[in-house]
């Protein structure tokens, strides 16, 4: 028994010591001291499949910046922490980065819930935080002036989907299926219905159904849709990344050949891997990253990613991680300093900055901390991804 106590105490002391001593300390002069940017990403936990690539994009950006001499002539250091897809760990990591590592700015996180855990920490410290993937348009008003998003809001992408379906695909009726249990799919479906009803009339949504998060077995829902007298022109299936493949597969296999529309969660190799060489599946995304399709910036990013990591980008989230860091870099260069208030003001002045995930425009009001961006509408043709359009919605539902 004594041995157990001894072992415990030794373990605790060792880990505390290592934690205290670990980590490189910079010995360079202040003028050349590295600019430390904090990055909290979902490296483990449920969102690891998105958070990992997201972090990779940020790392790629930092590498590029340093190859060109850094920001304001100083090297850039990305201080990474794991959110563990858990709000408590996120808050602790953020506090650690702000207090101990003394970062001057923050990037990271793709989930709005976790951004809400990290945001207040940065707001309190006054340092700018650019989220590399959270999409809830309410976040800036919930967190404060230090918060910016590199991604478009869910209301924007849902509106783009509704308008595109109505105008380009001629859809007048729709079916909506949403994944219950997470915020993203819930509000995505709601925004879609709101915009679509505005365009096609109050009765244009023929049936709304849902399935539980993590359980994409939907034979019951498929059969219910089949039993409708009038079949819809378009199916809007709001799922999270892991479930989009299975859901799309089940609807296509059941014989539904109308266009299927999804959100940026469809942006995963799993969609085609699981659903097979489907066609007429559309989804909104930050970007199309492919070797031979999409924008020029997209293609260049694709090549850089393969060169550094040895495999193609898993989804578009690396682009957002990259853009988030570049927004900070641009703002710091514009402001001529890393002083937080000046950087924040500089971000707000950014207009039409080219990004891998589309051009970004910010503004001084909180609403404008969610960037005005075009939405990439990606169309799957026989299993191949093509860029159908870069679309900016005319009207976006209020958050």
């Amino acid at each position, binding site marked *: 028994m004594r041995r157990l106590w001894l072992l415990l105490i030794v373990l605790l002391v060792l880990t505390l010591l290592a934690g205290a001593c670990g980590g490189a300390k910079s010995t360079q002069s202040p003028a050349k001291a590295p600019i430390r940017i904090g990055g909290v990403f979902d490296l483990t936990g449920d969102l690891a499949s998105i958070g990992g690539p997201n972090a990779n994009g940020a790392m790629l950006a930092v590498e590029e910046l340093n190859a060109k001499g850094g920001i304001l002539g100083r090297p850039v250091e990305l201080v990474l922490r794991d959110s563990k897809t858990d709000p408590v760990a996120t808050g602790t990591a953020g506090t650690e980065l702000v207090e101990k590592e003394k970062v001057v700015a923050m990037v990271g996180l793709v989930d709005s819930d976790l951004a809400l855990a990290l945001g207040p920490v940065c707001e*309190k410290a006054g340092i700018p935080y650019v989220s590399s993937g959270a999409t809830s348009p309410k976040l800036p008003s919930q967190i404060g002036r230090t918060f910016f998003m590199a991604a478009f809001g869910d209301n924007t992408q849902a509106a783009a989907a509704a308008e595109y379906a109505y105008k380009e695909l001629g859809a007048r009726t729709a079916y909506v299926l949403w994944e219950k249990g997470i915020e993203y799919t*819930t509000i995505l479906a709601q925004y879609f219905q709101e915009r679509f009803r505005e365009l096609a009339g109050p009765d244009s949504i023929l049936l709304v159904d849902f399935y539980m998060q993590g359980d994409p077995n939907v034979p019951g829902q498929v059969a219910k849709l089949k039993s409708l007298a009038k079949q819809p022109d378009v199916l809007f299936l709001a799922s999270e990344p892991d479930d989009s493949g299975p859901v799309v597969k089940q609807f296509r296999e059941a014989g539904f050949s109308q266009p299927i529309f999804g959100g940026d969660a469809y942006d995963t190799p799993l969609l085609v891997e699981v659903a097979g060489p489907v066609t007429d599946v559309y989804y909104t995304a930050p970007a199309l990253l492919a070797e031979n399709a999409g924008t020029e910036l997209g293609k260049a990013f694709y090549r850089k990613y393969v060169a550094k990591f040895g495999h193609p980008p898993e989804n578009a989230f690396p682009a957002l991680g990259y853009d988030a860091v570049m927004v900070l870099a641009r703002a710091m260069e514009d402001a001529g300093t890393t002083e937080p208030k000046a950087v924040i003001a500089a971000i707000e002045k950014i207009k039409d900055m080219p990004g891998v995930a589309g051009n970004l425009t910010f503004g001084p009001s909180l609403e404008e901390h969610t960037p005005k961006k075009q939405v990439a509408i990606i169309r799957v043709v026989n299993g191949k991804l093509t860029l159908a359009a870069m679309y900016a919605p005319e009207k976006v539902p209020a958050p």
Partner: protein
Amino acid sequence: MNRRSLLSALFLLTIAALILLVVHLFAGAYWTRIAIVIGIYSLLAVSLGLSSGFTGVFSLGHTAFMALGAYTGALLTLPVQVKQSTMQQLPGFLATTQLHFLPATLLAGVLPALVALAVGPAILRLSGHFVSVATLGLLLITREILLNAESLTRGARTFTGVLPLTNLWWVFLWGAIAVYVSWRIKRSAIGREMFASREDPLAAQALGVSILRARLLAFVISAFFTGIAGCLYAHFILAFSARTFYLPVTFEVISMLVVGGMGSVSGAVLGAVILSGFKEAVRVLEPGFAIGPIRVPPIYGLAQIAMAFLFILFMMLRPKGLLGDREIGGLFWWDWFRRRSASLVERS
């Protein structure tokens, strides 16, 4: 309670308060956060110990009470304007009231306690693991209801805008109250009945102990404090949903109790401190560290793995936990303190 135990309790309280004062004044936000997290988990562990440890009824669903407390507390403290903009469908009374933290926390404890009172008599009659299974069912049902009652809880959507009202002192206050209540119960007649019903239910019944009454009392009080912990937690993380209160948290709290000693109040606190501390220490190491010339690369997820290993280790080597049913409470330290000061006085 005799004078010695009163003095020893006061002694412990003073020491704890002094430590907190130091943390509050000198430590930064980081250490304060750690202290708050340890405090909330201690509260959760002590509450669980009161029910599962004392009566042996292993509740896998206590997190349901935590969730209920979190939603109740948050709903009551949310400012009216926020309610009007994000939660238009709240029933009349809730939509127009905003309470101070103290009454809100109290109510956050009362609601789960009422639920426990309602379902307890049905569930607690079962024995052994059937109860555990039933409590797990309670957790799953509560989660379902919370996910669906959108007008009250925003359903699957995140409940945001919670006021950051939790601070070190509130956590300390409620923790101290919970520890005190647990400790008193343990040393009282009803406490002995609880332990008796754990050790040998048949013999206890033969002696006239009402097993149901003992279990129910423990269950309800435990639900009360767990609800309060949930309320404190909600006002700490500021944004949560029904997903937040599920199996991972359940497992963490149970581990703390197991490590510290199921039937021991100080054990619960000890378990919470050790596991939270260890988890944070390992998390700090995750980005990679150096021992002399050896540089260890980043291993994300190490904290979770280390916790699971530690747990299994304890299960094998010391399944009763570090303290079992013993306490290292006030008396222990008070006597130690007096002995040391007495020997100091002798020498001078």
